[in-house]
């Protein structure tokens, strides 16, 4: 009799457990689609020659599947004319989805936390022409002046600087850093 009682307890125990075991699991088979969050896949630079505003060149760097995965699909070489001045605007895009999202608007909304920085060689100089509400450089717009014919690099980086933005490029976290090959012809 005692044994029977024991056996019944074990049986009940296992039964309860088995029920719990086999429950749920539909959620598992329905994972979220990738890249639903914010992702910057593309940097797009638009150079407008200030002497002839119809002369507009667009250069792009694009890695549509984000970090890792496939290698970047577009890595343009920037070609500029010697001894010229250009108005530069930059756009950051998310092209991982069918609806391309312009992240630049977010950067602009949070201008006080962001800074676009440029490092260029080959005798070019970059002067930032836009500022945030605190009067610190933002960098979505700039003037680029070239000098003699030369080759070099033109690096664009987007810094996220919440609470630490001081106008410099030496603080914060780097969200974008692309080094374009630069040819001044």
């Amino acid at each position, binding site marked *: 009799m005692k044994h029977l009682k024991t056996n019944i307890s074990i049986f009940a125990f296992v039964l309860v457990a088995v029920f719990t075991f086999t429950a749920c699991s539909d959620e598992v088979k329905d994972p979220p689609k990738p890249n639903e969050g*914010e992702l910057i896949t593309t940097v797009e630079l638009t150079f407008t020659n200030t002497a002839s505003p119809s002369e507009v060149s667009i250069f792009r760097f694009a890695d549509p599947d984000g970090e890792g995965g496939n290698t970047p699909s577009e890595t343009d070489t920037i070609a500029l004319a010697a001894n010229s001045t250009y108005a530069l605007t930059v756009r950051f895009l998310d092209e991982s989805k069918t609806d391309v999202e312009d992240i630049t608007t977010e950067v602009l909304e949070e201008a006080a936390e962001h800074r676009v920085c440029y490092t260029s060689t080959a005798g070019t100089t970059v002067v930032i022409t836009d500022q945030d509400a605190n009067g610190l450089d933002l960098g979505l717009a700039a003037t680029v002046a070239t000098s003699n014919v030369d080759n070099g690099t033109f690096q664009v980086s987007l810094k996220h600087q919440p609470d630490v933005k001081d106008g410099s490029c030496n603080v914060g976290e780097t969200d974008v850093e692309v080094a374009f090959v630069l040819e001044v012809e």
Partner: protein
Amino acid sequence: MRKLFALLVLCCGGMLAHSQVNLSGIVRDSATQAPLSLSLIQVGNLTVLSDEHGQFTLSNLTAGTHTLAVSHVGCKVKKVSLKLLQDTFVTVHLPHHAHTFGEVVAYGHLDDSEPDARLIQTVSTRRLEQLAAVSLSDALQHTNGVSFLKTGTTIAKPIINGMHSNRISVINDDSKQEGQQWGSEHAPEIDPLSAGSIELIKGASTLRYGGDAMGGVIRVLPALFNDSSYTKISLLAKGETNPNGGQIGLKVENHSKKLGLGHRLVVNAKRNGDAATSNYVLSNTGFAQLSGSYYTQYINGKSQLSLTASAFIQEIGILAASHIGNVTDLNRALTSDTPLISHPFTYTINPPSQRIQHYASKLKWKHKSRKYGDIILSYTFQNNLRQEFDNHRGTSDAALDLNLATHQINLLLDKHIESIRIQYGLMAEQQQNTFQGRYFIPNYERYKAGAFAIATLEKEKYLIEGGLRYDLQNTNTYRFVGNDLVNETFNFDGLSANVSGWRRVNHDLKIHLSAATRFRSPDINELFSDGLHHGSAALEFGDLSLKQERSYSLNAALNYNHNRWRVAVEPYFHYFQNYIYLKPSGEKQLSIRGAFPVFRYVQTDATYTGLDVDLRYRLASNWTAEAQAALLYVEDVRNNQFIFGIPAQRFSGRLKYTFAEKLGLQNGYWWIGPSYTARQTRVEANEDFTATPEAYFLLDTELSAQYRETPLHFSFGVRNILNTAYRDYMNRYRYFADDLGINFYITINYTF
């Protein structure tokens, strides 16, 4: 009631009416069942001290009634009357509140009266309360042969035999703790205040707790109730300066002997602000933890039923300066002597941060059956929620958001047939992981099952144990590749086996040996990592074709106790086939954030050769000197290379003074201890982002005692007395900031 009670257990041999009888017995802590060595047993004018196993013998007593007086450090003399008619063996349980401060860690196989081949160390309830430990790593401080893999100050994972994460199992009573343990910055979700004691089992000396714990097992046990009716309330408080903060814990325990019913409620809360190094504040390293558990136990004759429910909630700030976007940021951090972000001290926790919740409930049934021996059946449900936030999205949208639910059933049968003990059992587990938002590991559903059998033969001078275990698992993963939902299936199974045992060579020397083979299935991150790891400047790639890894392990221990010496020497050797690790590949991959170094999970063959040494020498009646060393050499033997992320050699020592009464303080100790951690030189050139940190020397001290005759007990201590600026190779923050500077702390325990 603090009552001494004795059980008259065994009456053997000998005929009645002997005029002379022998009395022998064992003294145990009634709470932990740990034998109490150096207890003073007095009968008439005869006195004897219990030995290292709590045992004592008094020979040639006259038959008749005797008063047995038993005392131990921290416990008033308690008396019990015995009528001795023949040779008698008694088990004396000293109540828990005997303040048994003598040893931090009890060595040998002391916790368990059962024959056992486990290579074990136990941290007692008392010690856990003294430490006011909020994490497993706090609880295991100063345990020989344990070091920690850290992310800052609050996230720490124990390292045993050089191994951590997936190669160490944390077992809560008898079921495995299931969190996202694959991550190096994911600490085990355990509140030691709810625990009765913690066992540290090194190497592969048992197969009872799963086949994959190659490095060792940390087992958290609930406290036993005293064998009397009582209500006890304990309060615990801790305050410290670095990180500035405090902790309050409450333990309420009620036990009715008559009903066989006991309850225990534990609530523990901790809050601290930013920690500091010797030179600057570590911004955003605040910490908050709220944990609680309820345990109830009902004993009716031969059956025992217990129920546990626990909740654990943590919010941890991640050092602001450690969250970087790319290699340029990292290099800037590396070349800077101070962190690039340092604000004044605050309690506020901002992103980047982690929010972790762990809920568990367990139903356990234990029955003493004449036919099957002890039957232990348990069901455990655990739900682990992990959210990690970065400073891009704030706390509204987690960068990592995982929900892991686990159901487990464990069945164990444990039977003694004369000097043979047979244990066998089954485990079954169902687990499902789901994620929200950003992909890091896929959703999966996993079924695990295991069966084991262990046979132990114990004789007076030796013990030998053999075990066999079979484990299998089936995992189905679900993830999107592009727009396609992909379902992949992984099946792994394998055998584990071990032979362990010890031999008591003579009264002073005991030798322990263990040989085992085990296997571990590749974990989800090793298979599926694909891309940038949150906050680190590296691309990590898993490999879906990884095979299971197999270990062949040898663990030994030599324990020598003679006069003033107490020596423990524990060498070990592990050979791994298909050892899985994250290897820097040397490649760089271009992305929109610049070029990142690529790390890949690879398989190779590896060896772990190590030695843990613990030497203790009693200088005088109150003074003890201790020295510990932990040496480890790890090699990738297939490629003749060093392996990344292995702890450096460590040495520590301690000078300890114990006293029964001094300046109104009772049963206390004071110690001062230096520790030296060497530089890790066994690394491949240019593999890491920076050179390994320099060797460092630290000095700590602690005073602990009971205030007069009151139940007030306190500890006061200072860590890093010299305020040394140092970085540790096993701390991920070493790239960004120094480790902790000087810290003063005080812990108070009061029992009503």
